[in-house]
Protein backbone atom coordinates (compact mmCIF):
# COMPACT_ATOMS: atom_id res chain seq x y z
CA UNK A 1 0.00 0.00 0.00
CA UNK A 2 1.29 3.45 -0.83
CA UNK A 3 -0.39 6.19 1.15
CA UNK A 4 0.85 9.71 0.49
CA UNK A 5 0.03 12.15 3.28
CA UNK A 6 -1.82 15.31 2.35
CA UNK A 7 0.47 17.66 4.25
CA UNK A 8 3.83 16.59 2.88
CA UNK A 9 5.58 16.49 -0.45
CA UNK A 10 6.44 13.22 -2.07
CA UNK A 11 8.98 12.35 -4.75
CA UNK A 12 7.45 11.82 -8.21
CA UNK A 13 9.50 10.37 -11.03
CA UNK A 14 8.54 9.74 -14.63
CA UNK A 15 9.87 9.95 -18.16
CA UNK A 16 9.12 13.21 -19.91
CA UNK A 17 9.65 13.08 -23.66
CA UNK A 18 12.05 10.18 -23.16
CA UNK A 19 14.12 11.76 -20.39
CA UNK A 20 13.78 10.87 -16.72
CA UNK A 21 12.57 13.76 -14.56
CA UNK A 22 11.72 14.06 -10.90
CA UNK A 23 10.24 16.52 -8.47
CA UNK A 24 8.21 16.70 -5.33
CA UNK A 25 4.46 17.06 -5.08
CA UNK A 26 1.70 17.08 -2.51
CA UNK A 27 -0.97 14.50 -3.34
CA UNK A 28 -3.34 17.22 -4.55
CA UNK A 29 -0.92 18.66 -7.11
CA UNK A 30 -2.24 18.38 -10.66
CA UNK A 31 0.03 17.01 -13.36
CA UNK A 32 -0.40 20.26 -15.31
CA UNK A 33 0.99 22.27 -12.38
CA UNK A 34 3.70 19.72 -11.71
CA UNK A 35 4.92 19.94 -15.31
CA UNK A 36 4.92 23.72 -15.31
CA UNK A 37 6.05 24.60 -11.78
CA UNK A 38 8.17 21.67 -10.64
CA UNK A 39 9.72 20.58 -13.93
CA UNK A 40 9.61 23.96 -15.66
CA UNK A 41 8.04 22.45 -18.79
CA UNK A 42 5.75 25.37 -19.53
CA UNK A 43 4.81 24.26 -23.03
CA UNK A 44 1.70 22.59 -21.60
CA UNK A 45 -0.89 25.29 -21.03
CA UNK A 46 -3.59 25.46 -18.39
CA UNK A 47 -6.99 26.77 -19.42
CA UNK A 48 -10.21 25.78 -17.68
CA UNK A 49 -8.83 23.28 -15.16
CA UNK A 50 -11.88 21.08 -15.37
CA UNK A 51 -11.23 19.06 -18.47
CA UNK A 52 -13.28 21.02 -20.97
CA UNK A 53 -10.92 23.25 -22.95
CA UNK A 54 -8.21 20.74 -23.85
CA UNK A 55 -5.27 23.20 -23.59
CA UNK A 56 -3.45 20.94 -21.12
CA UNK A 57 -3.74 17.72 -23.17
CA UNK A 58 -0.66 15.49 -22.95
CA UNK A 59 0.05 11.83 -23.71
CA UNK A 60 0.39 9.49 -20.72
CA UNK A 61 1.59 5.95 -21.52
CA UNK A 62 0.28 6.29 -25.05
CA UNK A 63 -3.12 7.68 -23.99
CA UNK A 64 -4.33 11.19 -24.60
CA UNK A 65 -5.12 12.77 -21.26
CA UNK A 66 -6.08 16.06 -19.68
CA UNK A 67 -3.16 16.87 -17.39
CA UNK A 68 -5.51 19.05 -15.29
CA UNK A 69 -7.64 15.98 -14.53
CA UNK A 70 -4.61 13.92 -13.54
CA UNK A 71 -2.67 14.05 -10.31
CA UNK A 72 1.10 14.12 -10.43
CA UNK A 73 1.01 11.21 -7.97
CA UNK A 74 -0.94 9.12 -10.50
CA UNK A 75 1.77 9.24 -13.16
CA UNK A 76 4.69 8.12 -11.01
CA UNK A 77 6.64 5.72 -13.22
CA UNK A 78 4.73 6.58 -16.41
CA UNK A 79 5.95 7.86 -19.77
CA UNK A 80 4.66 11.29 -20.64
CA UNK A 81 4.87 13.20 -23.88
CA UNK A 82 4.27 16.92 -24.08
CA UNK A 83 4.52 19.55 -26.77
CA UNK A 84 8.21 20.01 -25.96
CA UNK A 85 8.80 16.57 -27.46
CA UNK A 86 7.35 17.31 -30.89
CA UNK A 87 10.16 19.24 -32.59
CA UNK A 88 12.97 17.11 -34.04
CA UNK A 89 15.52 19.56 -32.63
CA UNK A 90 15.55 22.86 -30.78
CA UNK A 91 15.78 24.97 -33.93
CA UNK A 92 13.44 23.01 -36.20
CA UNK A 93 9.74 22.31 -36.28
CA UNK A 94 8.11 18.96 -36.97
CA UNK A 95 5.84 18.35 -39.96
CA UNK A 96 2.65 19.03 -38.00
CA UNK A 97 4.08 22.18 -36.42
CA UNK A 98 5.22 23.47 -39.83
CA UNK A 99 1.74 22.86 -41.23
CA UNK A 100 0.30 24.89 -38.35
CA UNK A 101 2.62 27.80 -39.12
CA UNK A 102 1.95 27.66 -42.86
CA UNK A 103 -1.82 27.65 -42.39
CA UNK A 104 -1.99 30.22 -39.59
CA UNK A 105 -3.55 27.50 -37.47
CA UNK A 106 -2.74 29.48 -34.34
CA UNK A 107 -3.10 33.08 -33.36
CA UNK A 108 -2.67 33.56 -29.63
CA UNK A 109 -1.35 30.01 -29.31
CA UNK A 110 -2.93 29.26 -25.96
CA UNK A 111 -4.82 26.18 -27.13
CA UNK A 112 -2.12 25.05 -29.56
CA UNK A 113 -0.02 22.80 -27.32
CA UNK A 114 -3.02 20.62 -26.49
CA UNK A 115 -4.28 20.49 -30.06
CA UNK A 116 -0.83 19.53 -31.35
CA UNK A 117 -0.65 16.66 -28.86
CA UNK A 118 -4.09 15.36 -29.87
CA UNK A 119 -3.30 15.62 -33.58
CA UNK A 120 0.20 14.14 -33.25
CA UNK A 121 -1.19 11.18 -31.29
CA UNK A 122 -4.08 10.70 -33.72
CA UNK A 123 -2.12 11.04 -36.96
CA UNK A 124 0.43 8.46 -35.84
CA UNK A 125 -2.41 5.95 -35.55
CA UNK A 126 -4.66 7.17 -38.37
CA UNK A 127 -2.44 8.28 -41.23
CA UNK A 128 -5.30 9.08 -43.63
CA UNK A 129 -7.99 10.92 -41.64
CA UNK A 130 -11.07 12.49 -43.18
CA UNK A 131 -12.10 16.04 -42.37
CA UNK A 132 -14.90 14.57 -40.22
CA UNK A 133 -12.35 12.57 -38.20
CA UNK A 134 -10.29 15.69 -37.58
CA UNK A 135 -13.37 17.71 -36.60
CA UNK A 136 -14.42 14.96 -34.20
CA UNK A 137 -10.96 14.94 -32.63
CA UNK A 138 -10.96 18.73 -32.32
CA UNK A 139 -14.32 18.67 -30.53
CA UNK A 140 -12.21 17.93 -27.46
CA UNK A 141 -10.48 21.32 -27.75
CA UNK A 142 -11.56 24.93 -27.57
CA UNK A 143 -9.90 27.57 -29.76
CA UNK A 144 -11.19 31.13 -29.48
CA UNK A 145 -9.07 32.67 -32.27
CA UNK A 146 -8.99 30.67 -35.45
CA UNK A 147 -12.52 29.42 -36.00
CA UNK A 148 -10.90 25.97 -36.41
CA UNK A 149 -10.81 25.97 -40.24
CA UNK A 150 -7.07 26.70 -40.48
CA UNK A 151 -6.41 24.01 -37.86
CA UNK A 152 -8.33 21.44 -39.90
CA UNK A 153 -6.46 22.48 -43.04
CA UNK A 154 -3.13 22.17 -41.25
CA UNK A 155 -4.03 18.74 -39.88
CA UNK A 156 -5.05 17.40 -43.28
CA UNK A 157 -1.94 18.84 -44.96
CA UNK A 158 0.29 17.38 -42.27
CA UNK A 159 -1.40 13.99 -42.67
CA UNK A 160 -0.79 14.03 -46.41
CA UNK A 161 2.82 15.07 -45.90
CA UNK A 162 3.43 12.48 -43.18
CA UNK A 163 2.04 9.78 -45.45
CA UNK A 164 4.68 10.47 -48.08
CA UNK A 165 7.61 11.72 -46.03
CA UNK A 166 9.88 9.56 -43.95
CA UNK A 167 9.63 10.67 -40.35
CA UNK A 168 12.19 13.36 -39.73
CA UNK A 169 14.99 12.28 -37.44
CA UNK A 170 16.78 14.62 -35.06
CA UNK A 171 20.00 16.06 -36.51
CA UNK A 172 22.98 14.29 -35.08
Amino acid at each position, binding site marked *: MTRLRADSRHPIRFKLNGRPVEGEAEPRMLLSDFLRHQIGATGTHVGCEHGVCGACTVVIDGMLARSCLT*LAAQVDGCEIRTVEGLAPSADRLGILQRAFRRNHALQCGFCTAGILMSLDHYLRRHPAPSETDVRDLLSGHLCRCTGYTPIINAALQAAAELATAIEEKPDV
Partner: protein
Amino acid sequence: MKPAAFDYLRAESVDEVLEGLSNEGGNARVLAGGQSLMAMLNMRLAKPKLLIDIMRLKELNRIEEQAGVVTIGASVRQAALLAWPELARTLPLLALALPWVGHVQTRSRGTICGSLAHADPSAEMPLALIALGGQVHLRSARRRRRLAASEFFLGMMATARAEDELIEAVSFPAQGGSRCAFREVARRHGDFAIVACVAVATPNGVRFAVGGVADIPMARDWPRLDGSALDDALNGFAYELGARNDVHATARYRRDLVRIIGRDLVREVLQ
Protein backbone atom coordinates in the same frame (compact mmCIF):
# COMPACT_ATOMS: atom_id res chain seq x y z
CA MET B 1 -9.54 25.72 -9.16
CA LYS B 2 -7.15 23.51 -7.22
CA PRO B 3 -8.30 20.57 -5.12
CA ALA B 4 -8.42 20.82 -1.34
CA ALA B 5 -5.79 18.69 0.40
CA PHE B 6 -6.26 14.93 0.63
CA ASP B 7 -4.26 11.79 1.30
CA TYR B 8 -3.63 9.65 -1.78
CA LEU B 9 -3.64 5.89 -1.51
CA ARG B 10 -2.49 3.80 -4.45
CA ALA B 11 -4.29 0.55 -3.75
CA GLU B 12 -2.53 -2.70 -4.50
CA SER B 13 -5.49 -4.96 -3.74
CA VAL B 14 -9.27 -4.71 -3.60
CA ASP B 15 -9.07 -5.43 0.15
CA GLU B 16 -7.04 -2.26 0.62
CA VAL B 17 -9.72 -0.29 -1.19
CA LEU B 18 -12.48 -1.79 0.95
CA GLU B 19 -10.48 -1.20 4.14
CA GLY B 20 -9.91 2.42 3.20
CA LEU B 21 -13.59 2.93 2.42
CA SER B 22 -14.68 1.18 5.60
CA ASN B 23 -12.29 3.21 7.82
CA GLU B 24 -12.87 6.61 6.27
CA GLY B 25 -16.49 6.28 5.13
CA GLY B 26 -17.82 9.41 3.52
CA ASN B 27 -14.41 11.11 3.71
CA ALA B 28 -12.95 8.72 1.15
CA ARG B 29 -13.57 8.65 -2.59
CA VAL B 30 -12.49 6.10 -5.14
CA LEU B 31 -10.42 7.57 -7.96
CA ALA B 32 -10.64 5.68 -11.25
CA GLY B 33 -10.20 7.54 -14.54
CA GLY B 34 -10.84 10.86 -12.81
CA GLN B 35 -12.73 12.42 -15.71
CA SER B 36 -15.65 13.42 -13.48
CA LEU B 37 -14.18 13.27 -9.98
CA MET B 38 -11.06 15.33 -10.72
CA ALA B 39 -13.20 18.14 -12.14
CA MET B 40 -15.36 18.00 -8.99
CA LEU B 41 -12.21 18.17 -6.86
CA ASN B 42 -10.75 21.06 -8.85
CA MET B 43 -13.97 23.01 -8.40
CA ARG B 44 -14.11 21.91 -4.74
CA LEU B 45 -17.57 20.46 -5.21
CA ALA B 46 -16.05 17.41 -3.53
CA LYS B 47 -13.51 17.61 -0.69
CA PRO B 48 -12.61 14.08 0.35
CA LYS B 49 -9.88 13.50 2.92
CA LEU B 50 -8.68 10.39 1.13
CA LEU B 51 -8.51 9.40 -2.54
CA ILE B 52 -8.13 5.71 -3.26
CA ASP B 53 -6.64 5.12 -6.71
CA ILE B 54 -7.84 1.80 -8.14
CA MET B 55 -6.34 2.06 -11.61
CA ARG B 56 -3.37 -0.20 -10.92
CA LEU B 57 -5.59 -3.11 -9.85
CA LYS B 58 -5.46 -5.65 -12.67
CA GLU B 59 -8.28 -7.69 -11.12
CA LEU B 60 -10.68 -4.80 -11.76
CA ASN B 61 -9.50 -4.35 -15.34
CA ARG B 62 -11.50 -7.18 -16.89
CA ILE B 63 -14.17 -7.46 -19.53
CA GLU B 64 -15.84 -10.88 -19.37
CA GLU B 65 -18.64 -12.48 -21.32
CA GLN B 66 -20.27 -15.40 -19.56
CA ALA B 67 -23.69 -17.00 -19.95
CA GLY B 68 -25.09 -14.09 -21.91
CA VAL B 69 -23.86 -11.44 -19.49
CA VAL B 70 -21.02 -8.99 -20.12
CA THR B 71 -19.26 -7.86 -16.95
CA ILE B 72 -17.02 -4.81 -17.01
CA GLY B 73 -14.63 -4.17 -14.13
CA ALA B 74 -14.21 -0.89 -12.27
CA SER B 75 -10.92 0.10 -13.88
CA VAL B 76 -11.93 -0.64 -17.50
CA ARG B 77 -11.58 2.57 -19.44
CA GLN B 78 -14.22 3.69 -21.92
CA ALA B 79 -11.68 3.54 -24.76
CA ALA B 80 -10.81 -0.05 -23.81
CA LEU B 81 -14.44 -1.15 -23.96
CA LEU B 82 -14.91 0.64 -27.26
CA ALA B 83 -11.89 -1.24 -28.62
CA TRP B 84 -13.10 -4.62 -27.30
CA PRO B 85 -13.58 -6.79 -30.42
CA GLU B 86 -16.76 -8.44 -29.07
CA LEU B 87 -18.55 -5.18 -28.28
CA ALA B 88 -20.53 -4.77 -31.50
CA ARG B 89 -21.74 -8.39 -31.28
CA THR B 90 -22.64 -8.52 -27.59
CA LEU B 91 -23.64 -4.93 -26.78
CA PRO B 92 -24.30 -3.02 -30.00
CA LEU B 93 -26.04 -0.30 -27.97
CA LEU B 94 -22.78 0.50 -26.16
CA ALA B 95 -20.93 0.48 -29.48
CA LEU B 96 -23.38 3.19 -30.62
CA ALA B 97 -23.41 5.21 -27.40
CA LEU B 98 -19.78 5.14 -26.27
CA PRO B 99 -18.49 7.49 -29.00
CA TRP B 100 -20.83 10.10 -27.46
CA VAL B 101 -19.23 9.85 -24.02
CA GLY B 102 -17.00 12.91 -23.73
CA HIS B 103 -14.18 13.13 -26.26
CA VAL B 104 -11.36 10.90 -27.45
CA GLN B 105 -9.16 12.77 -24.99
CA THR B 106 -11.39 11.87 -22.00
CA ARG B 107 -12.55 8.39 -23.07
CA SER B 108 -8.91 7.32 -23.04
CA ARG B 109 -8.90 7.87 -19.25
CA GLY B 110 -12.51 7.69 -18.06
CA THR B 111 -14.06 4.41 -16.93
CA ILE B 112 -17.51 2.90 -17.46
CA CYS B 113 -18.09 2.37 -13.74
CA GLY B 114 -16.86 5.87 -12.93
CA SER B 115 -19.47 7.30 -15.26
CA LEU B 116 -22.15 5.30 -13.43
CA ALA B 117 -20.83 6.37 -10.02
CA HIS B 118 -21.00 10.02 -11.06
CA ALA B 119 -24.63 9.55 -12.22
CA ASP B 120 -24.92 12.68 -14.29
CA PRO B 121 -28.53 12.83 -15.56
CA SER B 122 -27.41 13.47 -19.12
CA ALA B 123 -24.64 10.86 -19.24
CA GLU B 124 -24.81 8.05 -21.77
CA MET B 125 -23.64 5.08 -19.68
CA PRO B 126 -26.37 5.39 -17.01
CA LEU B 127 -28.89 5.65 -19.86
CA ALA B 128 -27.53 2.49 -21.49
CA LEU B 129 -27.60 0.66 -18.15
CA ILE B 130 -31.25 1.59 -17.62
CA ALA B 131 -32.18 0.75 -21.21
CA LEU B 132 -30.60 -2.70 -21.12
CA GLY B 133 -31.56 -3.51 -17.53
CA GLY B 134 -28.01 -3.99 -16.28
CA GLN B 135 -26.74 -4.44 -12.75
CA VAL B 136 -24.21 -2.61 -10.59
CA HIS B 137 -21.95 -4.86 -8.50
CA LEU B 138 -21.22 -3.28 -5.14
CA ARG B 139 -18.74 -4.57 -2.61
CA SER B 140 -17.76 -3.49 0.86
CA ALA B 141 -15.75 -5.13 3.64
CA ARG B 142 -18.99 -6.48 5.08
CA ARG B 143 -21.03 -7.58 2.05
CA ARG B 144 -21.46 -7.90 -1.66
CA ARG B 145 -24.66 -6.99 -3.43
CA ARG B 146 -25.98 -6.30 -6.89
CA LEU B 147 -28.43 -3.56 -7.65
CA ALA B 148 -30.57 -3.29 -10.75
CA ALA B 149 -30.07 -0.08 -12.68
CA SER B 150 -33.56 1.04 -11.62
CA GLU B 151 -32.58 0.71 -7.94
CA PHE B 152 -29.09 2.19 -8.29
CA PHE B 153 -29.87 5.67 -9.59
CA LEU B 154 -31.69 7.75 -6.98
CA GLY B 155 -31.49 11.24 -8.40
CA MET B 156 -29.22 13.83 -9.94
CA MET B 157 -25.68 12.63 -9.14
CA ALA B 158 -27.10 10.48 -6.35
CA THR B 159 -26.91 6.69 -6.20
CA ALA B 160 -27.73 3.89 -3.78
CA ARG B 161 -24.02 3.16 -3.22
CA ALA B 162 -23.28 3.19 0.52
CA GLU B 163 -20.26 5.20 1.67
CA ASP B 164 -18.17 2.10 2.31
CA GLU B 165 -18.99 0.45 -1.01
CA LEU B 166 -16.86 0.12 -4.11
CA ILE B 167 -18.51 -0.27 -7.50
CA GLU B 168 -16.57 -3.37 -8.37
CA ALA B 169 -18.11 -3.96 -11.78
CA VAL B 170 -21.16 -3.44 -13.91
CA SER B 171 -22.92 -6.11 -15.93
CA PHE B 172 -25.08 -5.83 -19.00
CA PRO B 173 -27.22 -8.64 -20.41
CA ALA B 174 -25.85 -9.36 -23.88
CA GLN B 175 -28.33 -8.13 -26.44
CA GLY B 176 -28.41 -11.38 -28.38
CA GLY B 177 -29.03 -9.69 -31.69
CA SER B 178 -31.97 -7.54 -30.53
CA ARG B 179 -32.15 -4.36 -32.55
CA CYS B 180 -31.31 -1.07 -30.90
CA ALA B 181 -30.91 2.57 -31.79
CA PHE B 182 -29.31 5.57 -30.08
CA ARG B 183 -29.51 9.26 -30.82
CA GLU B 184 -28.34 12.29 -28.92
CA VAL B 185 -28.77 16.02 -29.35
CA ALA B 186 -26.08 18.28 -27.85
CA ARG B 187 -24.71 21.66 -28.81
CA ARG B 188 -21.44 20.06 -29.89
CA HIS B 189 -20.41 16.44 -30.13
CA GLY B 190 -19.09 15.44 -26.71
CA ASP B 191 -21.01 18.08 -24.80
CA PHE B 192 -23.58 17.01 -22.24
CA ALA B 193 -26.74 15.75 -23.90
CA ILE B 194 -29.75 18.03 -24.08
CA VAL B 195 -31.68 14.86 -24.83
CA ALA B 196 -30.35 11.34 -25.46
CA CYS B 197 -32.69 8.51 -26.46
CA VAL B 198 -32.39 4.75 -26.76
CA ALA B 199 -34.78 2.23 -28.26
CA VAL B 200 -34.25 -1.52 -27.83
CA ALA B 201 -36.46 -4.19 -29.35
CA THR B 202 -37.94 -6.56 -26.75
CA PRO B 203 -39.79 -9.88 -27.30
CA ASN B 204 -43.15 -8.08 -26.97
CA GLY B 205 -42.36 -4.71 -28.43
CA VAL B 206 -39.91 -2.00 -27.53
CA ARG B 207 -38.18 -0.42 -24.57
CA PHE B 208 -37.62 3.31 -24.94
CA ALA B 209 -35.30 5.22 -22.59
CA VAL B 210 -34.48 8.91 -22.27
CA GLY B 211 -31.54 10.70 -20.62
CA GLY B 212 -30.87 14.39 -20.09
CA VAL B 213 -34.46 15.33 -19.21
CA ALA B 214 -35.42 13.88 -15.81
CA ASP B 215 -33.02 13.65 -12.85
CA ILE B 216 -32.23 10.07 -13.78
CA PRO B 217 -32.56 8.18 -17.06
CA MET B 218 -36.08 6.78 -17.43
CA ALA B 219 -37.44 3.91 -19.51
CA ARG B 220 -40.83 2.66 -20.63
CA ASP B 221 -41.77 -0.74 -22.05
CA TRP B 222 -44.33 -0.65 -24.78
CA PRO B 223 -45.96 -3.28 -27.01
CA ARG B 224 -45.54 -2.87 -30.77
CA LEU B 225 -46.96 0.60 -31.31
CA ASP B 226 -47.40 2.57 -34.46
CA GLY B 227 -49.15 5.65 -35.75
CA SER B 228 -51.15 7.67 -33.27
CA ALA B 229 -50.79 5.05 -30.51
CA LEU B 230 -47.02 5.56 -30.64
CA ASP B 231 -47.39 9.33 -30.78
CA ASP B 232 -49.67 9.26 -27.73
CA ALA B 233 -47.30 7.03 -25.77
CA LEU B 234 -44.35 9.29 -26.60
CA ASN B 235 -46.30 12.43 -25.76
CA GLY B 236 -47.38 11.00 -22.42
CA PHE B 237 -43.81 9.95 -21.60
CA ALA B 238 -42.42 13.33 -22.69
CA TYR B 239 -44.61 15.03 -20.07
CA GLU B 240 -43.96 12.41 -17.37
CA LEU B 241 -40.24 13.17 -17.64
CA GLY B 242 -40.89 16.58 -16.07
CA ALA B 243 -38.58 18.56 -18.35
CA ARG B 244 -37.26 21.89 -17.04
CA ASN B 245 -36.01 25.03 -18.70
CA ASP B 246 -32.30 25.72 -18.42
CA VAL B 247 -29.60 27.65 -20.29
CA HIS B 248 -29.25 24.88 -22.86
CA ALA B 249 -32.87 24.32 -23.87
CA THR B 250 -36.47 24.94 -22.91
CA ALA B 251 -38.67 22.24 -21.43
CA ARG B 252 -40.83 22.37 -24.53
CA TYR B 253 -37.85 21.83 -26.83
CA ARG B 254 -36.83 18.80 -24.77
CA ARG B 255 -40.35 17.34 -25.02
CA ASP B 256 -40.29 17.92 -28.76
CA LEU B 257 -36.98 16.10 -29.07
CA VAL B 258 -38.32 13.14 -27.07
CA ARG B 259 -41.37 12.92 -29.35
CA ILE B 260 -39.51 13.32 -32.64
CA ILE B 261 -36.42 11.25 -31.88
CA GLY B 262 -38.57 8.69 -30.09
CA ARG B 263 -40.78 8.12 -33.11
CA ASP B 264 -37.76 7.65 -35.38
CA LEU B 265 -35.93 5.28 -33.05
CA VAL B 266 -38.96 3.14 -32.17
CA ARG B 267 -39.84 2.74 -35.84
CA GLU B 268 -36.22 1.95 -36.63
CA VAL B 269 -35.98 -0.94 -34.17
CA LEU B 270 -39.47 -2.32 -34.89
CA GLN B 271 -39.01 -2.39 -38.66
